């Protein structure tokens, strides 16, 4: 069964057709990677899923229900969670407070402290807990934002370029974390440029090009597809 599904989804920014009739189905329990050249409309598709943009036309279903018009916070409360491309952490607050704000909505007060400490440990940010989040390294900021997304105990986790700016070690750790979450039943949709990372985690891959679904399949099918190679020609990330 599809946990997330779109029907003929379109988004125009003025004269720009950024999402072009997308029919997309995300299977419950899979790790799915969304790839495509810069400006293909990957982040826009995420924003449509989250309700931050409303589609010009088309529909979005989550667990079989039409959420096309639902408010962003309503979608989050139904179990969707996101890590943005540009980390949206609370820069002037401490790392600990960032996690507290993410966690407090879903936890009883008496388990909150313990849970924050666990998450800090997991993110390897225990020593940095009283630092302002804005002073973290780029990789740590990414970690923190992933931690905040995970803290919501989502059913569907959207990750927009989770490993950008991370060291190879951090990238590998992120991959392991995603797989572990997935084993616990979390469906993951990740936008990624790092093909090694995609190979590590993805069950299926979708290629987006000029806002349209260009190809879909396993990573091996995608990599051996000459048309896909062609659209990536000249793209530094290929």
């Amino acid at each position, binding site marked *: 069964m599809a946990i997330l599904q779109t029907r003929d989804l379109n988004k125009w920014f003025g004269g720009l057709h950024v999402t072009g009739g997308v029919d997309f189905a995300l299977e419950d329990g899979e790790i799915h990677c969304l790839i495509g050249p810069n400006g293909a409309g990957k982040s826009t598709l995420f924003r449509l899923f989250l309700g931050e943009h409303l589609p010009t036309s088309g529909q979005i279903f989550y667990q079989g229900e039409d959420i096309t018009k639902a408010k962003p916070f309503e979608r989050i*409360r139904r179990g969707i969670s996101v890590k943005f491309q540009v980390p949206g952490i609370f820069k002037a607050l401490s790392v*600990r407070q960032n996690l507290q704000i993410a966690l*407090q909505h879903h936890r009883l007060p008496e388990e909150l402290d313990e849970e924050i400490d666990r998450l800090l440990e997991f993110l390897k940010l225990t020593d940095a807990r009283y630092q302002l989040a804005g002073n973290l390294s780029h990789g740590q900021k990414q970690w923190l934002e992933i931690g905040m997304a995970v803290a919501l105990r989502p059913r569907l986790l959207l990750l927009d370029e989770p490993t950008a700016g991370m060291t190879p070690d951090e990238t590998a750790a992120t991959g392991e974390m995603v797989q572990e979450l997935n084993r616990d039943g979390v469906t993951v949709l990740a936008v990624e440029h790092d093909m090694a990372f995609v190979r590590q985690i993805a069950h299926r891959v979708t290629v987006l090009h000029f806002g349209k679904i260009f190809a879909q399949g396993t990573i091996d099918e995608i990599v051996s597809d000459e048309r896909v190679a062609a659209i990536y020609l000249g793209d530094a990330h290929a």
Partner: protein
Amino acid sequence: MARANLLSSTIRLLDGPQTLGRGRPFWTSFALVLVLACAYPMFADGYDVGNNVYFFNWVFMALGLSLIWGYGGTLSFGQTAFFGVAGYSYGVISTNFGDAYGLTLVALIASVAAAALFSAVLGYFLFFGRISGVFLGIVTLSVTLVLERFMAQTAGPEWQVGTARLNGYNGMGGMPSLTIPWFGGDIVLFPDVQLYYCTLALLVACYLGLRLLVNSRFGNVLVAIRENPQRAEMLGYDIRVYQLVAFVIGSALAGLSGVLYTSWGNYITPASMGMTAAALPIVWVAVGGRSDLTTTLIGTLIVLGGFQALTIHGSQYALVVMGVLLVLTVLIAPRGLVFSLGALAGGMFRRKTAGRE
């Protein structure tokens, strides 16, 4: 056991991360200042003490603005509108019902409630209409100025509510002072020592209450919205509700200022909602350091005192000085002068103690 838990969690909230002054040194100074404030009437003339209550009257409004703007990130120019609504309400209600049987206290509560209700209606349209940033400032300022204009044209005898004449630009006067019913006879809170202690107690209660609020779960979300509203919403919070609640609480505090001011001077005029009046809270709060309750409180008292000194000594430039002060603050210490000094002192203190260990 449960009581001990409640106590420890209350202390935690009083001393939480959203307030700059923390720990033993801070609370020691706090107690010291409080003792000094309590002792002051013993060394001063009752008349002066009563006059100086004037400074306390404004602090509630400033703390409210700190909550809305400093913690919530929403710049409201509307504080004096709610000040005026509550002030006039107090005038009308207390003039009509008098000061027996503690009715002035009912008038106080009803007037603050009127300001809160007005702010809830206005805030609903602002926040649920997704009006933010500079537009919210413009709308709130417009509301303030419209109210001023409206009250200014109520000079005619037709503008009378019961026995209370609104009196147009000359302002409304003659309402009774706040009166506390007491066994041996009512205590009338004329500007004197009794009013001083009552206002001081109210101020301490509001300050501590706000400290609890900003360090609570609610406060956490409020500062999160200030830092990044989109991210806060993507954590599942309906940010409109949080902004609205902060706006109503902050506006109600402005209303409390309005009632205290009106009762203190037995007088309120439309000018209390004018352009100048509307801008002053912004100056107090910005100069002190809007993102912290303590710096807001200290800054407001210092700026008010300085302003008063300038006007008394015949300077016509008091307002200009206020403007310059605001500009300097924005340029030199955007987070507030008192805030920056406090952070500096705190940093030095920490380094000193760290060196000792």
